[in-house]
């Protein structure tokens, strides 16, 4: 039996799904969090019903890729659990009546039940059940209230007779129902609502946005640097490095396996970044250098997501972004891309037009550095002085805007206007925040470690076979001629295909000047997405889109790399 969770965006389907199945999925306080489907099995019931979390949709006529996924999944469902936001009964019931027409047995979860109280809304759930003719269960997905009851009542799911109503008839019906089941008492604005209004008002919203961004960067740096300085670096240097030094001695201080495992000795000693062994650099980069920033970044992002701030940022930035051929909501994929480009590119599915998706995905893969890359840039370039880090970021922001402006002129098609629902501010639920942070952190480690290990092995082999020398010769005109980097940097750029953090780590071993480090970092950030993003980019944009994206990327990298080299 396949059970689908269907409903409007941001009603709590994913939170609901995690509760029912124990499978972690991302739930955030903005419409469009889920862009694909996830399957899981019921945790509570005996018979193994399969349950599927799908993207939210306002109608059954999809307007974007994410909604398409939702509507397509309807064909597969044996039972629908229609999740409703009880604080938005009228609009949610409109979808319910549309779903009824599909002729699939259905039951209703009246979610966000806890929120109705704060909002002065009271709903007679029994009456609603009676009027609709299908089971209605009040639920609170974040606390688990009502979950068991929903499961128990799944067998009561019913197909209603197909009335074949038109939209105006449906609205009229919805109106009649709501009038009979809901009473709203007026109450005063809460501080959350006041803050909500203030952060979307231009005069107060822009300073608030500036404050939020500044605070976010400060907190990420504070946590990231703190974790590295007080936890990870001491652990690696005091505990791990001595062990590795013993291992190095045991292996005789040189030779192929020595270099693969612990790496080369730098001035007679092992170095966590420069030695480039699997057990030294291969562990230090993911755990010692990047993980702290990944944790810090996702902690702050998760907080802003769950608070409900991101759609407000979309409204504030809409004007600027329209000049780049995209609308304000594109900021959400872009911010997700700052963690990892892959979910960022996937999140472009919430955008309505193909042109917009192309522009946003291209911009992400060129000018939005992932957290792993940023952590290495901050660590390595930051050693030369914070101003150099600022140059890297500044350049990427300018590149992001300029490429956007240009793409807006040359890419054919239409960019729709902004049309989004602004969710109320909610206190971020700790459980959901922790679960998200865990998923994303584990996701990073699972992705990074195997590739890093394999990468280091391959590099050592290629060095032993002198392959890089030949490559470096071939790439010399560009790498040295245009970018002003030593030939050895070619190897780093090649490794950038695999992982950007590892590539920046390789730059660290090249004795570059500060200027060269900046050029190298920017080139690595812009040039070719890592293999994982590349695959997703191709899947989401299609071959033609991918080609277009790559051409823009190559041209932009050549131009920006050369310019920076001239300036610095």
């Amino acid at each position: 039996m396949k059970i689908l969770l269907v409903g409007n965006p941001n009603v709590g389907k994913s939170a609901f799904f995690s509760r029912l199945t124990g499978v972690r999925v991302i739930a955030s306080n903005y419409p469009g969090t889920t862009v694909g489907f996830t399957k899981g099995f019921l945790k509570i019931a005996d018979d193994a019903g399969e349950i599927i979390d799908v993207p939210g949709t306002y109608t059954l006529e999809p307007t974007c890729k994410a909604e398409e996924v939702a509507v397509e999944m309807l064909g597969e469902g044996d039972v629908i659990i229609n999740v409703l936001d009880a604080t938005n009964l009228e609009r949610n019931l409109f979808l319910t009546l549309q779903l009824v027409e599909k002729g699939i047995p259905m039951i209703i979860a009246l979610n966000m039940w806890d929120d109705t109280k704060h909002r002065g809304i009271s709903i007679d759930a029994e009456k609603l059940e009676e009027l609709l003719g299908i089971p209605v269960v009040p639920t609170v997905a974040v606390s688990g209230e009502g979950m068991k009851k929903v499961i128990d009542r799944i067998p009561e799911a019913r197909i209603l007779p197909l009335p074949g109503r038109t939209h105006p008839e449906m609205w009229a019906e919805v109106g009649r129902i709501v009038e009979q089941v809901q009473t709203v008492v007026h109450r005063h604005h809460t501080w959350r609502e006041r803050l909500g209004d203030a952060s979307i008002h231009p005069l107060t919203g822009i300073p608030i946005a500036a404050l939020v961004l500044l605070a976010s960067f400060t907190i990420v740096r504070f946590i990231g640097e703190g974790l590295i300085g007080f936890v990870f670096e001491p652990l690696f240097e005091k505990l791990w490095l001595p062990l590795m030094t013993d291992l190095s001695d045991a292996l005789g201080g040189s030779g192929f396996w020595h270099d693969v495992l612990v790496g080369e000795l730098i001035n007679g000693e092992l170095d966590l970044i420069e030695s480039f062994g699997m057990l030294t650099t291969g562990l230090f980069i993911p755990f010692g250098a990047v993980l702290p920033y990944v944790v810090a970044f996702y902690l702050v992002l998760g907080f802003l997501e769950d608070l409900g701030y991101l759609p407000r940022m979309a409204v504030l930035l809409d004007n600027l972004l329209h000049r780049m051929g995209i609308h304000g909501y594109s900021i959400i994929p872009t911010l997700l891309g700052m963690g990892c480009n892959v979910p960022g590119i996937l999140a472009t599915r919430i955008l309505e037009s193909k042109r917009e998706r192309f522009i946003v995905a291209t911009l992400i893969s060129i000018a939005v550095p992932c957290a792993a890359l940023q952590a290495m840039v901050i660590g390595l370039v930051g050693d030369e002085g914070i101003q150099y880090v600022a140059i890297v970021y500044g350049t990427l922001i300018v590149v992001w805007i300029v490429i956007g402006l240009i793409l807006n002129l040359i890419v054919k098609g239409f960019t729709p206007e902004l049309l989004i629902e602004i969710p109320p501010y909610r206190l971020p639920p700790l459980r959901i925040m922790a679960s998200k942070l865990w998923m994303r952190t584990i996701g990073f480690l699972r992705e990074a470690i195997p590739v890093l290990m394999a990468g280091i092995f391959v590099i050592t082999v290629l060095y032993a076979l002198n392959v890089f020398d030949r490559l470096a010769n071939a790439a010399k005109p560009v790498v040295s001629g245009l970018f002003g980097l030593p030939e050895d940097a070619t190897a780093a750029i090649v490794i950038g295909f695999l992982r950007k953090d590892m590539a920046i780590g390789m730059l660290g071993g090249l004795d570059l000047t500060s200027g060269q480090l900046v050029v190298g970092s920017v080139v690595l950030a812009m040039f070719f997405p890592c293999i994982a993003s590349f695959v997703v980019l191709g899947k989401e944009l299609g071959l033609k889109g991918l080609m277009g994206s790559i051409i823009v990327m190559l041209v932009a990298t050549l131009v920006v790399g050369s310019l920076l080299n001239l300036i610095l």
Partner: protein
Amino acid sequence: MTDRKQITIAQMEAGQSGRVVNIDSGRGMKRVEAMGLRPGKRVTKISGMFMRGPITIKVGGTQLALGFGMAQKVMVEVAGK
């Protein structure tokens, strides 16, 4: 107070309320309906961004932000002066 006039959402002042009387059709306007903005509903404008930026309104239990062009397609009846 009994005097009424019709303006678009784009022309409303922040804080002003009115009742939707007509929505012109056009790209994306179907979705507007599904999001709960349709004739007969009471809307309150919360704010509008500078330079014909998006406009935020409250309708039913929902806050919506819509582009200026879309806001110009929604006629509301407000109390006139």
